[in-house]
């Protein structure tokens, strides 16, 4: 593997907040881009405080989400609402290759951060826009979040429910991070266009479109009126042999005895109920399906009597197919995850390991991340790179434009 990272030399302005857009900038930084995060002086990106504030985030003393969304970035604290900040921003825009923006359209207009405001400053710039719901239409101005725009609006949560049950749950930033990969692809297509034509461009995506894409199979079916499928809850299965069972330690096992024509006898042995094999109620596949609830009533207490690990051991030696429902607590030490390059060591003692972006390249490895920059940590250094004098920097600070 050569050391030249594919995005080395690329200057990226991350003028965005929260997760999907900053996560795209992270992936670019992982592969060598120089990412400058432009954020409000003081509090900075509100995402910096999610680990303390958001009810859906696990509690920790260390700012773990920032290792994902702020790593390998330099922070420039600039108050874009102040007139004095504008020339600094414009100087950066003139030098940048990529600029990532996720303000809702009205805020962009107010801050003069729309593509039409920016393009005249740098016609070679790839301007990357993330919105909740797209650039036009009745809801374009609505701030969009992962749970509302990606999961709720796209039909994923409704589709992810058991018959009669509540909608499915999404995890914090789950759709944001998937969307980030789309932004990366969009930016790379913009850079290719620049190589081919010498011209900059607008590229972008929306959380809604990404949720709809992820839910694409179901939505394509819905669009031609296909009858949508509901999922039976585990206590009312249509087939008791391909169903979820709770183990003694409140974990779940996905039983996958699809070939019960061949495996029925083995299965009865394995679960310690050999007499079920000759039970007149369950003699063949049709009977077993027809009496799925009765069969479930026989099987469920058996699975509930042993722990997940015990069942895993029993089933894996007998050829009874089952699916593992993993837990995050186990995955972080999963040898296979290490082989797949999913986690990486950092040089940040507070957060010694992080999650890699999922892109693997034979010719380059992602950069090792250190401690994410504090708000404005690199403000002066960046301004000096732009040839600002100490006096000018002081003046900007006094005006409150620079933090």
């Amino acid at each position, binding site marked *: 593997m050569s050391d030249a990272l594919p995005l080395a030399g690329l200057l990226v302005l991350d003028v965005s907040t929260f997760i999907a857009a900053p996560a795209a900038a992270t992936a670019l930084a992982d592969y060598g881009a120089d990412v400058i995060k432009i954020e409000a002086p003081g509090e900075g990106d509100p995402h910096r405080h999610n680990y303390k504030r958001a009810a859906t985030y696990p509690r920790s003393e260390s700012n*773990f989400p920032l290792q994902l969304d702020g790593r390998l970035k330099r922070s420039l604290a600039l108050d874009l609402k102040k007139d004095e900040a504008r020339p600094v921003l414009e100087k950066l825009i003139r030098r940048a290759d990529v600029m990532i923006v996720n303000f809702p359209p009205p805020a962009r207009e107010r801050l003069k951060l729309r593509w039409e405001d920016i393009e005249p400053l740098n016609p070679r710039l790839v301007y990357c826009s993330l919105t909740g719901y797209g650039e036009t239409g009745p809801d374009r101005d609505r701030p969009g979040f992962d749970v509302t725009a990606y999961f709720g609006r796209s039909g994923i949560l409704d589709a992810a429910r058991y018959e009669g049950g509540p909608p499915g749950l999404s995890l914090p930033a789950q759709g944001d991070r998937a969307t980030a990969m789309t932004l990366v692809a969009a930016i790379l297509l913009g850079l290719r266009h620049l190589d081919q034509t010498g011209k900059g461009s607008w590229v972008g995506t929306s959380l809604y479109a990404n949720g709809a894409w992820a839910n694409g199979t179901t939505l394509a079916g819905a669009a031609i009126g296909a009858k949508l499928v509901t999922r039976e809850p585990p206590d009312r299965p249509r087939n008791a042999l391909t169903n979820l069972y709770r183990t003694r330690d409140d974990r779940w096992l996905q039983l996958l005895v699809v070939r019960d024509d061949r495996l029925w006898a083995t299965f009865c042995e394995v679960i310690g109920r050999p007499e079920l094999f000759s039970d007149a109620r369950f003699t063949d596949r049709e009977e077993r399906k027809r009496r799925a609830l009765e069969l479930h009533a026989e099987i469920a207490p058996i699975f509930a009597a042993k722990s997940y690990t015990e069942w895993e051991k029993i089933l894996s030696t007998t050829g009874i197919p089952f699916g593992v429902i993993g837990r995050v*607590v186990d995955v972080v030490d999963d040898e296979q995850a290490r082989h797949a390059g999913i986690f990486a060591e950092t040089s940040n003692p507070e957060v010694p390991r992080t999650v890699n972006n999922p892109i693997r390249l034979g010719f380059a490895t992602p950069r090792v991340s250190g401690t994410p920059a504090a708000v404005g940590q690199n403000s002066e250094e960046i301004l000096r790179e732009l040839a600002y004098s100490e006096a000018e920097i002081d003046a900007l600070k006094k005006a409150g434009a620079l933090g």
Partner: protein
Amino acid sequence: MPESALPLQGLKVLDISSFIAAPAAAVVLGDWGADVIKVEGPEGDPNRRIMHDSSNYPKSETNYPWHMDSRNKRSIVLDLKKPEARAALDRLIEKADVLICNFPPPVRDKLKLAYEDAKRVNPKLIYASLTGYGESGPDRDRPGFDATAYFARSGLLDAQRYEDGPPGVPGPAQGDRATAMALVSSILMALMHRMKTGEGAWVGTSLLGNGLWSCGVIAQAALVGAYLPHRPPPERPRSALGNIYRTADDRWLQLTIVRTDKLWAPLCEAMGLAPLIDDPRFATEPDRRARSAELAALLSAAFAKQPYEHWRKALAHHQVTFGVISRPQDVPDDQQAVACGAVVETKIAEMPRTLSNPIRLSFAEQRAAHPAPALGQHSEEILREVGLSAREVADLKASGAVK
């Protein structure tokens, strides 16, 4: 908006993959102009039959999943187990820019389709590999599926359950399609690398890696020893004002009230529960939190009395924002889904609308979807393009290597 050629025009892509994640990446490349050749075995990609084979797919007369995952591709049938087919495949590889492969490693070895094999034929080739669990390690040879590798093994499904409830329900191909965007990004990075260095490359991603990337917040939290308890079910929420409720017509809506002091009275008005405004049990936010189950029961009973449409109007009238939990069948006709470009028209008579990929570019528009190919529909034309004579093609057909 389009002002120039599609960014991937002229790019030759061999899609030697099956099911969804890898073929969907090829779809995205095709949407942006690439010439995608789908190489299939004599039985064809099993995704051609998945709508019938999988109980989780909505059923239809139209093979919508196949159209969605193979639009704008051409199909050639090569029986790679036959030596004659291999020579023909090498001709295709010689002329290709990108080869997408998702066979598990042992099959790649058997078919001589590992990166080293393909590189020998074409050193400038970009070889894009999709696996379930990575390229090495104890589970590298396991076929990985979206439900098992992206959702179950990663810990997503376990984390997506309500306290005491069963695991979450993944929608068909939901993780596959998200993974496709990471694969596209990796291919585009390699194209950039090739433009700079003239070298081909191996790139890839795994379903497990993408699952963990999408649940990066909880994975990163686990890496520092922080865990999120399972979400309490809707009948005993942490906050009744940040909870989901079922309406009379079995739909769900999500209250997301953060500024509870400001919105408490408007909410009670909108719900027809005005007496609650001054009810001492719920006078302050701490009171409402302490009695969240009691409050949730009152709200739940009220929501159950009227249909969704009633509540949508009533809440909007009192300026109480809420999250929409769309049903999949609502999305294709959602004006905003069209505005953000997610739902587009096709040139497929039996499937007039489909889902576009979520990338948007100012300088180009995605190609309209044309029907997915029949098995081997373009075998002859493709072989002639890479220089085989009519005679050679006829011989290959006679040997059964080509169909």
